[in-house]
């Protein structure tokens, strides 16, 4: 066993996890700021400069809150729920290529935890576990609102997972690979996939919103009908996990969309700058990060702009529109590719 | 191929027809037309066969004269079933078109079972046959007995699917192929995995065809399911299971070294099936349950064909499938007209409804294997095949004794109808039903007098 390899991977993993958590924390700040701007308010501004220390205060508060587990609940599952949600959120990032190869002391270090040839399937697999976190939490609480919310959540997430999976087929048709690294590398040497797959991207985007339970699809937590939904009974860091997991998921889906459709860590002209490879890699990471931030902003922008869907509308959109659309997209893509061959 | 495609498509079409057509009679006629189409399409394919058989799906399906013949028998039996019992579908529930569609899906599974040449196809065939049956068994949603039948059937059925798959996998592990023809080549030296696999396959298939000691689900399921579907499950479906059984063993596991492993097991299973089926049928109080046990007993006879594995056996299974299906479908059609399913419910039927009684008598004769009915030659062929096999004379004698026992419970119905007095409650039926009943009687007798009608194609 190569110890250096393990150390290197552990460092990368800690980096990625820290990044995810950090981004998630500051997303809460970002969310409130965006909301403030859109609603013409100031937003958080007391803790630190422009309220930048607000997320830390919030996190600390969650740590020191009293932990309440209702007597009627299923204790083990009650704790398991948020743990699963968090765990799943932390696991998705493993196959996303954060950048190209860094060369340190003669070692080639890829900025990707694991480059496996079924990267996309891995993501799907892990993401579909996410629904258990919500289901377990909702059911274990033994609260009518929570239960309803969790059932809703499950129903919604699995419905949109279909369209999500279908929308990617068209993309895979011309990448011919399930490895995210390959997909990004292909875009590095050609056009970004968004050019070929505008429809696919839109479907993916909508489904990503639904998967993350983001407005306009945030029915599971619909605070004004379900009192907060599946995490109604949660407090302290368990609640924090649910909230964090949601933001991490947002972050990862942004990264995924950036990688799949917007070239990932590549940016136009990156191979003709003539800079040192390590520098190019770092620039690439920065480029990816900018794309991710733009997506995150988009998530928030939508949240404060579009009202929540009704449940039947949500389901009809998912089943009756997204799925056929994805199929049509797939067939058209296939026909065009074959016709041009 | 034609038969497979047309039945599968018919199923899909019928599902959609159910969405747009509300008239249940029309749906029935439509379904009958679709079976006819499948029947003709199936026969048309016989003309296109070159060199005895043709292959499809990358060689995973083989269409031969024999498979076409068996398909024709199955489709013919289904046609008869639709015509005789089609109206009963309406009494089960609202979704008539769906029931028909499910029957078509089962048929397409059977079409697959007649011609598979890859274990994958065997698995698919068995599953396509099984899954719709779980639904049909439970189609009477409000009836607890139907619910229970469905659940029981489902649990048992999927359990045996698991066993079947394990068997296939072990065989694959030992041989590296799913192709049943290639499997036969590797019989020189036997890997222990192969033997284990064959045993598991036998158990699983015995489950599916309800052979003892894996039969215990059958009476409950047959009893609990809506009678109209029991009729189909006990006949066409069972025959379909047997053809899969026969084909697999016929192609893959013949030969001295390998058959010496499974032959004793299968022989014991057959013997147990015959004994249990017949002895238990004797004690039943309901005709429907009696028929369920009798179907187990009949399975024992069909197993003889599987064990014998020779030319006569293949002819025999065709004849048996035809004879048994037609007679049982007819018997169930009569049963459904009689409101009370106990033996007492048949008391005095001959006076009140001579035609129903006559039809039931002929069908029961056929089931019992009386000469001049189709059942006789069916039994004759399987017995003959087993005698020919050489090592199984004891089983043949046992089968014969069981056949004599079977007379007892079949004749209980006849005795009730003819020799006892009573006021049987009978549902009204149309002249068309009458005509069909007579036609069925004629088929049974025709096959019994002149089985060459069917055998000349085998």
């Amino acid at each position, binding site marked *: 066993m190569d110890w250096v390899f393990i150390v290197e991977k552990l460092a990368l993993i800690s980096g990625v996890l820290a990044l995810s958590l950090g981004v998630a924390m500051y997303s809460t700040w970002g969310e409130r700021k965006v909301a403030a701007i859109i609603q013409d308010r100031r937003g958080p501004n007391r803790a630190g400069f422009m309220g930048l220390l607000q997320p830390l205060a919030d996190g600390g508060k969650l740590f020191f809150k009293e932990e309440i587990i209702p007597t009627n609940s299923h204790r083990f599952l009650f704790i398991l729920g948020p743990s699963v949600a968090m765990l799943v959120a932390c696991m998705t990032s493993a196959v996303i290529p954060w950048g190209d190869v860094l060369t340190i002391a003669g070692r080639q270090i890829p900025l990707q935890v694991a480059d496996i040839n079924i990267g996309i399937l891995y993501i799907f697999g892990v993401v579909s576990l996410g629904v258990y976190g919500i289901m377990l939490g909702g059911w274990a609480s033994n609260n009518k609102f929570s239960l309803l919310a969790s059932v809703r959540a499950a129903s919604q997430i699995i419905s949109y997972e279909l369209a999500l999976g279908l929308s990617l087929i068209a993309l895979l048709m011309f990448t011919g690979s399930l490895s995210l690294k390959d997909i990004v590398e292909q875009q590095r040497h050609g056009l970004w996939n968004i050019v070929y797959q505008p429809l696919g991207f839109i479907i993916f985007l909508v489904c990503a919103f639904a998967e993350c339970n983001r407005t306009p699809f945030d029915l599971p937590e619909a605070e004004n009908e379900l009192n907060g939904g599946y995490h109604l009974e949660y407090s302290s860091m368990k609640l924090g996990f649910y909230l964090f997991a949601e933001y991490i998921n947002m972050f990862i889906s942004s990264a995924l969309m950036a990688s799949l459709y917007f070239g990932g860590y590549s940016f136009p002209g990156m191979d003709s700058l003539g800079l040192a490879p390590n520098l190019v890699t770092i620039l690439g990471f920065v480029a990816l990060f900018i794309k991710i931030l733009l997506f995150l902003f988009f998530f928030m922008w939508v949240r404060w702009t579009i009202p929540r869907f009704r449940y039947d509308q949500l389901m009809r959109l998912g089943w009756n529109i997204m799925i056929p659309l994805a199929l049509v997209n797939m067939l058209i893509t296939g026909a065009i590719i074959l016709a041009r061959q | 191929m034609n038969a497979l495609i047309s039945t599968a498509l018919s199923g899909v079409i019928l599902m959609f027809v159910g969405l747009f057509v509300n008239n249940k009679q029309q749906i029935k006629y439509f379904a009958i037309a679709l079976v006819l189409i499948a029947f003709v399409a199936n026969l048309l394919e016989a003309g296109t066969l070159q060199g005895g058989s043709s292959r499809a799906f990358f060689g995973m399906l083989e269409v031969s004269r024999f498979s076409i013949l068996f398909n024709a028998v199955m489709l013919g039996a289904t046609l008869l079933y639709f015509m005789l019992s089609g109206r009963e579908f309406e009494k089960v529930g609202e979704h008539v078109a769906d029931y028909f569609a499910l029957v078509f899906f089962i048929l397409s599974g059977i079409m697959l079972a007649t011609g598979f040449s890859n274990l994958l196809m065997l698995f698919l065939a068995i599953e396509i046959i099984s899954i719709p049956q779980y639904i049909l068994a439970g189609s009477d949603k409000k009836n607890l007995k139907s619910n229970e039948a469905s659940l029981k059937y489902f649990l048992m059925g999927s359990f045996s699917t698991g066993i079947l798959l394990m068997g296939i996998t072990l065989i694959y592990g030992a041989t590296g192929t799913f192709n049943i023809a290639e499997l036969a080549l590797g019989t020189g030296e036997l890997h222990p995995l192969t033997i284990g696999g064959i045993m598991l396959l036998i158990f699983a298939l015995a489950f599916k065809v309800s052979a003892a000691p894996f039969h215990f689900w059958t009476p409950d399921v047959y009893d609990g399911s809506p009678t109209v579907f029991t009729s189909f499950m006990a006949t066409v479906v069972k025959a379909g299971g047997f053809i899969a059984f026969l084909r697999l063993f016929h192609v893959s596991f013949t030969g001295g070294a390998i058959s010496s492993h499974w032959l004793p097991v299968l022989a014991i299973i057959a013997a147990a099936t015959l004994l249990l089926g017949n002895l238990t049928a004797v004690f039943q109080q309901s005709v429907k349950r009696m028929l369920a046990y009798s179907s187990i007993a009949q399975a024992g006879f069909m197993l003889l064909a599987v064990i014998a594995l020779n030319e006569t056996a293949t002819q025999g299974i065709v004849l048996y499938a035809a004879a048994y299906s037609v007679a049982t479908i007819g018997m169930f059609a009569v049963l459904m007209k009689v409101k009370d399913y106990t033996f007492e419910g048949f008391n005095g039927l001959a006076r009140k409804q001579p035609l129903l009684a006559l039809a039931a008598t002929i069908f029961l004769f056929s089931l019992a294997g009386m000469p001049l009915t189709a059942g*006789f*030659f069916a039994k*004759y062929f399987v017995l003959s095949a087993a*005698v020919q096999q050489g090592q199984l004379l004891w089983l043949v*004698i046992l089968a014969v004794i069981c056949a004599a026992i079977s*007379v007892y419970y079949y004749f209980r119905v006849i005795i009730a109808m003819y020799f*006892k007095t009573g006021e049987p409650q009978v549902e009204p039926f149309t002249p068309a039903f009458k005509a069909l009943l007579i036609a069925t009687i004629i088929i049974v007798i025709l096959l019994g007098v002149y089985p*060459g009608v069917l*055998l*000349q194609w085998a």
Partner: protein
Amino acid sequence: MLTVLLILIPLVTGLITFGLKGSGPKVLGLISSLASLAVVIGALFQFRTAPDALHLVAPWIPQLGAQFNVGLDGMAVMLCLLTNIAFLLVFITIYNRSYERASSFYGLMLLSQAGLIGVFTAYDAMLFYVFWELALIPVYFLCSMWGGEKRIPVTFKFFVYTFAGSLLMLVGIIYLYLQSPDRSFSYTTFTNLNLPVQEQSWLFWLLFVAFAIKMPIFPFHTWQPDTYEQSPTPVTMILSGVMVKMGLFGVIRWLLPVVPQGAYMWAEVAMVLSVIGIIYASCIAIVQTDIKRLIAYSSIAHVGLMCAAIFANNEQSLQGIQIQMFNHGINIIGLWIVVEIIQQRLNIKNMDEMGGIAQYAPRLSIFLVIIALANIALPLTNGFIGEFLMFSGLFQYNFWLMGVAGLGIILAAVYTLNMVQKVIFGQGNALTATTVDLQNTELVALSLIVGVILFLGVYPKPMLDLVGSTTELVNKVF
């Protein structure tokens, strides 16, 4: 062609009869049996002139090698004659009776006639088997529908017994078929098989049990007395007069030529069983008070003798048994007719309640006496020549066996005469005083029987000639 006609006439008329109403069935039944009788007489003449013309071979199930192969040899002609006479007699006797659901009754009777003729004419084992069963089923229905109090269990027992037996026979046939070089069921193929002794020995039992049940011989007889007792008398006549002969016929036609060595091996066992049957049945017959049961046991005894004679394996016994088949048929039908008449008049079966009928119905009594004497094989009656031949055959085989069997004759005399004595002589009572003497149709039937009895008793040569060819054939193979 005549052979096919023999089968077709009852078959077709039988099927037609089901649809008739009123007196149609009985008229048609009578016409049909008259026509059959005419045809069989025609066949008799053709057998003298051109016996080959009675054979017909047509394809039936080519895949199996089964053919529609029918023909008549001497024994078969004789048995067909017996069958047709028997049915005619039955129809004549019951012409004035009215049966509930008469159309079914006559239809089933005619169907069973067709089956019986088929059994006697089939030269193809598969065909033989089919007719064998076909003859059984209508009889089953007849017994169960028109029989006595306990008819259902009793006839069912009868049915299951015979059916089980015939299934074993079927296995035997299948085995033989599989051994045949040309995959055929034909008689000639079967007789030329020359199987190893070992196989013949168990094949013998497969086939023999079926025949033994039908005859019936001890210990396969338990169905018989009950069935005879419970059946309607016309059916009992057919059962005892003709159907019993199916078993004997089967042994002579199929068992002996096909598995000769098997038969040779087991001959003693079969004979001992038969002889036990004779004594056993005779003893029981002596103590019977029920007239129907008495005749039933007497039939077992007679058949036992015939069966023993078959296995004695020589010309006399074979000849004897064949003509005895005919004669026993005629005699026992005669007895049953008398019983039927008494029962119809008095509605009793217990002999102790009878007596003195001779005073009130003299003609009936005369006929009964003659028939009874024929039954105990007095010289100058038809029974004599057959029994004589059989005993001489048995004597050649084994003296002691003959001796024991001969005891049967004495016992037969005891119970038959005892019956006659109880029924027609002795003290009359109020009931028997009401006995009405024979009426026209009954008179015709009984006269016919007595005519045959006396004619064949005096001049048995035509019968012997008729069966000679079969005897030769069997002897050659055996």
